[in-house]
C-alpha cells in the first residue's frame, strides 16, 4: 500500500515538474542582448610569450634610439675605465661596480614615466602601461647582462693569468648588482615611481662605490664565498620573476569564476 502511495506521489511530482509553464521569450530581448554584447567583444590577443618577446624587442629598439649617444658614451667610459685602472684587486671591484651603469641610466627613463601626460601618452599605445614598464625593464636588464658579458670576455682577454675559479667568482659577483638594481627598479616603478627616488638610489650606489674602493669594505665583500653570491643571485632572480609576473598580470581582467 505504502509502495503504491510512493509511486503515486512520484508521478504527481513528475506532473508537477512537467506542468511548469514558462513564458515565451520575446525575440527582441535576444537581439538587444546581442547588440549590447558587441561592445564587449574581445580584441584578439597574441599568445603571452609572443607578445612579451615582441614588446621587449620594441622596448629595446626604443631605448637604443632614444639613448644611443648616452649609451655609447657610457660604453666608451666603461671600457676606458677597464683599460686605465691598475692591475690589482681594485680593477675587479671597479669592474663589478660599474656593471649596472646601463640599468642606472635607463632606470631614469622608466622612473620618468610618472607625470600624467606621460601616463596618458603610454595609455594611448596599443599595449598597457604596465606592459610597457615590464618590457623596458626586461630589455635593459638583458642589455646590461649582455654588456657585462662582453666586458667580462674583454677582461679575460687582457688578463690571461686568471684561473677558472676566480673567473667564475667574478662572473657571479658581477651579476649581483645588476640583479639588485633590476629588482629595485621593478619595486620602485610599481610602488613609488619618482625620479627623486631613483636619484637617491644612484647617490647611494656612488657612496657604496666610494666605500668599496676607499675602505677595505670592497675587498671584504669581493672575497666572500662564491656560494653566498650564488644564493643571493638565486633569491634575487626568484624575486624578480615574481615581481615581473605581477607587473604583467596587473592589467588582466579579474576572473571571478575560475
Amino acid at each position, binding site marked *: 500500500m505504502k509502495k503504491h502511495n510512493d509511486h503515486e506521489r512520484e508521478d504527481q511530482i513528475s506532473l*508537477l515538474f512537467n506542468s511548469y509553464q514558462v513564458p515565451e521569450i520575446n525575440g527582441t530581448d535576444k537581439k538587444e542582448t546581442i547588440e549590447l*554584447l*558587441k561592445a564587449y567583444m*574581445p580584441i584578439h590577443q597574441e599568445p603571452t610569450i609572443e607578445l612579451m618577446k615582441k614588446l621587449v624587442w620594441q622596448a629595446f629598439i626604443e631605448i637604443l634610439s632614444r639613448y644611443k649617444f648616452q649609451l655609447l658614451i657610457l660604453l666608451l667610459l666603461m671600457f676606458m675605465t677597464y683599460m686605465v685602472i691598475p692591475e690589482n684587486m681594485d680593477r675587479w671591484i671597479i669592474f663589478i661596480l660599474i656593471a649596472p651603469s646601463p640599468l642606472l641610466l635607463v632606470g631614469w627613463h622608466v622612473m620618468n614615466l610618472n607625470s600624467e601626460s606621460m601616463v596618458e601618452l603610454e595609455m594611448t599605445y596599443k599595449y598597457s602601461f604596465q606592459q610597457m614598464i615590464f618590457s623596458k625593464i626586461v630589455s635593459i636588464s638583458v642589455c646590461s647582462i649582455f654588456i657585462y658579458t662582453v666586458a667580462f670576455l674583454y677582461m679575460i682577454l687582457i688578463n690571461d693569468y686568471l684561473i677558472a675559479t676566480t673567473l667564475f667568482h667574478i662572473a657571479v659577483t658581477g651579476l649581483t648588482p645588476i640583479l639588485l638594481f633590476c629588482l629595485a627598479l621593478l619595486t620602485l616603478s610599481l610602488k613609488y615611481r619618482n625620479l627623486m627616488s631613483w636619484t637617491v638610489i644612484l647617490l647611494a650606489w656612488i657612496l657604496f662605490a666610494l666605500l668599496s674602493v676607499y675602505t677595505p669594505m670592497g675587498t671584504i665583500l669581493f672575497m666572500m664565498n662564491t656560494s653566498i653570491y650564488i644564493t643571493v643571485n638565486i633569491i634575487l632572480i626568484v624575486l624578480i620573476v615574481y615581481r615581473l609576473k605581477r607587473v604583467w598580470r596587473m592589467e588582466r581582467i579579474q576572473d*571571478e*569564476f*575560475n
Partner: protein
Amino acid sequence: MREDGIVIKAIQHGDEEAMEELVYRYYDEIFYYIYRLGSSYEEAKDLTQEVFIAMMKALPKYKEQGNFKAWLYKIAHNRSLNHFRQNKKQIYLEVDLERLKVDVDFSEQLTNQVLMKELLNTLPKMQSSTLLLKYYHGFTIPEIARITGSTVPAVKSRLFQGLQKLKKMVMEGN
C-alpha cells in the same frame, strides 16, 4: 552545428557572428533557469543579460575544456543567487504560502504555473536550484556540484531533501 570550443575560439578572435550563435544557443536555457529560480520576466531578462556580459568579460582568459555550458550556468547561478540575496525581502513577500493550502483540487493548482513557482520558492535556493538543474536542464550530479560550488554528497542530499519536501507538499495538498 559548431562545437562550443570552436565558437568560443572564434569569439576570442573577435568574430561577432560566433557570439550571436552562442547567444542564440544558450539564451533560452539561461533565461528559464533564472526565471524558474524565482525571478519575474523582467528580472530574468536583466540577469540573463548580465550573465552574458560577465561571460564576455571573462572569455579572453577562458580555456575551453568541454565544460563551457556548466561554466556559463555557474555564472548564471552565482549572479542569480547574489541577486536574490540582495532582494531577499522582496522575494519572500511575493511568496504566498497560504495559497498552497486552499482546500480545492490540488491537480488544478498544479496546472497553475504561478503556484508551481511559489512551490519552488518555498524551498531554500540551493535546493530549488539543484532540482532545476537536475530535472529541467539535465545536468549530472557532479556537474551540479561544480555549478553550485558544492560537493557531490551535498548535491545528493539537497536533491533528496528537496524532493521529500515537494512530496510532503503534494501530500498536504491531497
